[in-house]
């Protein structure tokens, strides 16, 4: 039995020995490098561009500008193809552009023998602009007569509204109290370790091979075909080992360009390897949200109505566009299902870097607003925030309002109770009473979330698995599920071993993805991978197991049902007595001259369910008022993600997510110059990702439920841990200081301004700190 066991990652040794090969490790003879010539303004149009001097520089192979690229607009979002014309991504991008929509927009590209030459050539390109006032603040973007960043768009990428659980306006009228709040989240960036990198070459007259660090090899293949107007089958995408993505590689950023360049350069290999600075402003970011929330509730703490109004800013191009605000609205709706909800969202363009998919896809923004508002409501009536939540949260058997489906597994109340115990809520609440004045204050905070296990019914959920019994009695697994560091290959191996009855070590998952070979799967995003692959694996492994047992019958002349698989052997089902080894069986199947054949099984499975997941964060903070700093004493995340397939990997996901959440809460923000659209801090010195010693000890716990729609009872876990640390920390700081900080991040600069405004900065100063 391998599921739920503490097994090592299947790629652990390859990674720690440095043998795992990443995109940059692949060498092609004569490979050229390409560098973008990026705009130095945020909004405008190129009047003239002159690349002649640059072209003459020795070592420069070619230069292309917006004039030489196909006039085909394409959409970059890494979504499955949609057969519904109303549900297509916005195609608003050309390979290179004359119209400048953010600082760093791609005007031209230099191809050279190395990076040094390419960088020198960039300096020799002459360009003149017609400049427009950068549209950065929503008020300016939506003002009557504002320039359209994309013609005909009115600067709006998408808009929708839903109402469920009754009429919100009526429910608000029936409430004892109604409170309002406005919450703002900033532009943050994924900061995956491996920057975006791709290269392409041709291995035949008409076939393009792309090697790329991507979460979505199969989707990338389709979009490259669309962008260059060539048949999909002429494109092959290979994904080697990857150094993370967090959604930023659920987007087609470099692949169409490297494919274009190799086509233009006679099939010669061309690589684009973005610098960190380019990666931070020239790829994707998290959408900044402005959220208004109205909450109606009764004296006893029952919430009866919630109205949310969301403005999401997508930047210069749509990318994932309005899908992010839409997903944030629907996945959060499971949390408090017994009240009337209205959700209205709009997504707008702006002359800032492009936002796309990022871990938890809209939910961190929406849940931050929602859980700040919930806290404010609990405090308004002086009710304990845990009790208030317990009264209102979702329970197993509730019907999800947006989908109308019954929630089959939900351990959220146990999560809250467990977290309460682990943080010592009651004891510390009392103890911290005496730390509500003076320079150093203490407080506790909580926040909870709901999320989903995929994208169905918005997108198709399809997963493919192929199993092959090797001649030595082990099994090779090919999956379309894309390993990007999250550990999906390991849990797939566990699932296969579990159902086949094989030892875990005898299951090998083929690591690299290759669209010519790998079964179809849309890729790693939406925390979907383990959930959507589970039923495909279960079916494929069950079928291979049947074939193996049938073959044992064929070999021995015994009747069906007589045998079982235990570890490496076929044994008698009744007595457990040894019959033959798997290797003997496999060799026979391959080499017996009359019977058998290679034993394989292949399944492509569509998932038509989407299990909600739940969890919460508890946090204990110390606020140093004179220094304007928040110190986290303890943080606990408790998750209901169904059956935990691998406790160590699951813990790793939670730890990574919580640290990302702490960064979002306290320090991370891409700072935009409001006049020019310039990003001040697109580097890892000035963009403050917490370092190892900035993080407290991170505690996690699982409340294991069994999700019946999943092959192995598991639900999603990849993204959710990032969602609740920011609101929980905000609520704890509020508990400690009485100050509501309704914009992220809660950086010292922001605390300084708010503490001053609220009279907390003692002008005389106290020495006893």
């Amino acid at each position, binding site marked *: 039995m391998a599921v739920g066991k503490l097994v090592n990652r299947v790629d652990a040794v390859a990674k720690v020995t440095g043998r795992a090969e990443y995109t940059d490790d692949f060498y092609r003879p004569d490979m050229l490098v390409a560098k973008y010539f990026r705009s130095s303004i945020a909004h405008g149009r190129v009047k003239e561009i002159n690349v002649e001097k640059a072209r003459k520089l020795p070592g420069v192979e070619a230069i292309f500008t917006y004039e030489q690229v196909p006039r085909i607009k394409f959409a970059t979002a890494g979504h499955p193809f949609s057969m519904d014309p109303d549900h297509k991504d916005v195609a608003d991008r050309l390979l290179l552009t004359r119209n400048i929509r953010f600082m760093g927009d791609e005007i031209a590209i230099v191809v050279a023998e190395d990076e040094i030459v390419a960088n020198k050539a960039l300096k020799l390109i002459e360009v003149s602009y017609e400049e427009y006032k950068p549209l950065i603040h929503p008020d300016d973007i939506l003002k009557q007569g504002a320039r359209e960043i994309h013609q005909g768009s009115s600067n709006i990428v998408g808009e929708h509204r839903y109402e469920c659980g009754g009429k919100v306006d009526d429910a608000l009228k029936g409430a004892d109290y109604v409170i309002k709040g406005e919450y703002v989240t900033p532009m943050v960036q994924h900061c995956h370790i491996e920057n975006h990198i791709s290269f392409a070459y041709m291995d035949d007259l008409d076939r393009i091979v792309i090697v790329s660090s991507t979460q979505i090899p199969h989707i990338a293949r389709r979009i490259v075909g669309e962008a260059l107007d060539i048949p999909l089958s002429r494109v092959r995408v290979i994904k080697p080992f990857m150094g993370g993505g967090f959604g930023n590689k659920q987007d087609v950023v470099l692949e169409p360009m490297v494919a274009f360049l190799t086509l233009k350069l006679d099939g010669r290999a061309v690589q684009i390897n973005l610098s960190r600075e380019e990666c931070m402003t020239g790829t994707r970011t998290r959408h900044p949200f402005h959220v208004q929330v109205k909450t109606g509730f009764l004296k006893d703490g029952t919430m009866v109505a919630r109205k949310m109004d969301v403005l999401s800013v997508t930047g210069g191009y749509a990318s994932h566009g309005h899908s992010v605000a839409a997903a944030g609205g629907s996945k959060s709706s499971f949390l408090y299902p017994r009240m009337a909800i209205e959700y209205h969202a709009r997504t707008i363009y702006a002359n800032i870097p492009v936002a796309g998919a990022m871990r938890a896809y809209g939910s961190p923004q929406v849940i931050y607003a929602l859980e700040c508002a919930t806290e404010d409501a609990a405090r308004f009536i002086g009710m304990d925030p845990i009790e208030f939540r317990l009264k209102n949260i979702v329970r197993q058997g509730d019907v999800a309002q947006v989908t109308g489906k019954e929630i089959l597994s939900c351990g959220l109340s146990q999560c809250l109770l467990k977290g309460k115990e682990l943080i010592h809520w009651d004891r510390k609440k009392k103890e911290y009473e005496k730390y509500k004045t003076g320079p150093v204050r203490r407080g506790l905070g909580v926040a909870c979330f709901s999320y989903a296990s995929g994208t169905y019914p918005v997108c198709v959920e399809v997963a493919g698995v192929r199993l092959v019994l090797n001649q030595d009695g082990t099994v090779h697994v090919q999956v379309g599920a894309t390993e990007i560091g999250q550990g999906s290959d390991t849990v797939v191996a566990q699932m296969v071993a579990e159902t086949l009855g094989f030892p875990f070590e005898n299951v090998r998952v083929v690591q690299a993805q290759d669209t010519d070979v790998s079964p179809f799967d849309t890729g790693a995003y939406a925390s979907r991978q383990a959930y959507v692959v589970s039923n495909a694996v279960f079916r494929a492994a069950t079928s291979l197991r049947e074939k193996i047992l049938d073959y044992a019958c064929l070999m021995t002349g015994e009747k069906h049902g007589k045998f079982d698989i235990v570890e490496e052997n076929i044994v008698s089902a009744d007595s457990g007595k040894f019959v033959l080894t798997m290797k003997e069986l496999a060799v026979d199947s391959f080499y017996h001259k009359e019977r058998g054949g290679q034993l394989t099984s292949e399944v492509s499975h569509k998932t038509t369910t989407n299990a909600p997941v739940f969890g919460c964060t508890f946090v204990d903070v110390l606020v140093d008022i004179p220094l304007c700093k928040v110190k986290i004493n303890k943080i606990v995340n408790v998750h209901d993600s169904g059956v935990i397939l691998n406790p160590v990997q699951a813990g790793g996901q939670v730890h990574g997510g919580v640290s990302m959440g702490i960064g979002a809460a306290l320090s991370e923000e891409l700072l935009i110059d409001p006049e020019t659209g310039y990003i001040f801090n697109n580097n890892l010195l000035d963009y403050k990702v917490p370092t190892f010693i900035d993080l407290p000890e991170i505690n996690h716990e699982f409340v294991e439920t069994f999700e019946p729609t999943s092959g192995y009872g598991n639900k999603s876990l990849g993204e959710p841990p990032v969602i609740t640390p920011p609101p929980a920390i905000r609520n704890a700081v509020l508990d400690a200081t009485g100050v509501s900080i309704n914009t992220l991040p809660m950086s*010292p600069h922001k605390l*300084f301004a708010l503490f001053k405004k609220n009279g907390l900065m003692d002008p005389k*100063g106290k020495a006893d700190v």
Partner: protein
Amino acid sequence: MFDLKKNIKAETVDKAIKHLAENPDAKLIAGGTDVLIKLRQGKSEYCELVDIHDIDELKFIRIDDDKSIVIGSGMVFSKIIESDIIKKHIPMLCEAAESLGGPQVRNMATIGGNICNGVTSADSASSLFTLNAILILKGEDGTREIPISDFYLGPGRVDLKKCEVLTAFKITHDNYQGYFGHYYKYAMRDAMDIATIGCAVCLKTKNGILKDYRIAYGVAGPVPMRCRETEKTVINKKVSKDLLDEIAKTVEKDVNPRTSWRASREFRINIIKELSKRATKKALKRAGEKF
């Protein structure tokens, strides 16, 4: 990939001086943790280098016969942290060293490079200011000594003459014996960050009286600085909580931080005042003062 034209490895200080004389455009590189950043940014003034990283005569910490502590400019911060001499006599310099970068950076970054780089945020600078450190420089015309406070000329500019190499820092006996100090770095992160404000305090007490008091800041002005007015005001006063408040108040008049997108002047002044109290309090505790 760096666009390096020349990288000349020097085996001795004298050879380094000679290489600098023969290659007028060349710059010194020690640990390279500042130089390589500039090279990566494509700054062409660093494309010819004289590498002094492996010069053994720059790597030492010793106590001379006159009891001066002398620190070779090529000492990396991780070695300074481990030095028994520094730990025993000037622990505040260990604190400064520990606050710099992360382990990898501290293994490469030298104290000489930190000061010669000339930036106001250099973490070792304010401590060296409060210790009245003397810089020993060697050039074509021989050796000269200069107090650290005279070495800084302006942001990124130091008093290094043509072909000069900083060889060592000297802290004389009367500047460390009987002194207690503390370095407090305030940054947005606890590692891998530049100081928003760095504050070093070094003091001497007798019978509850501040006999000597030195306070220096990084990022409180264009170059690291001592707060002379504050020092004058508080020397010979009785140690008390009120004294800490008085220091915080006067120190504001000594400093001149600026507003940048990284932090506002007002925010920095708040931190400057608060750190003066916290660093002084810590140093007083070390001096055995109770109040």
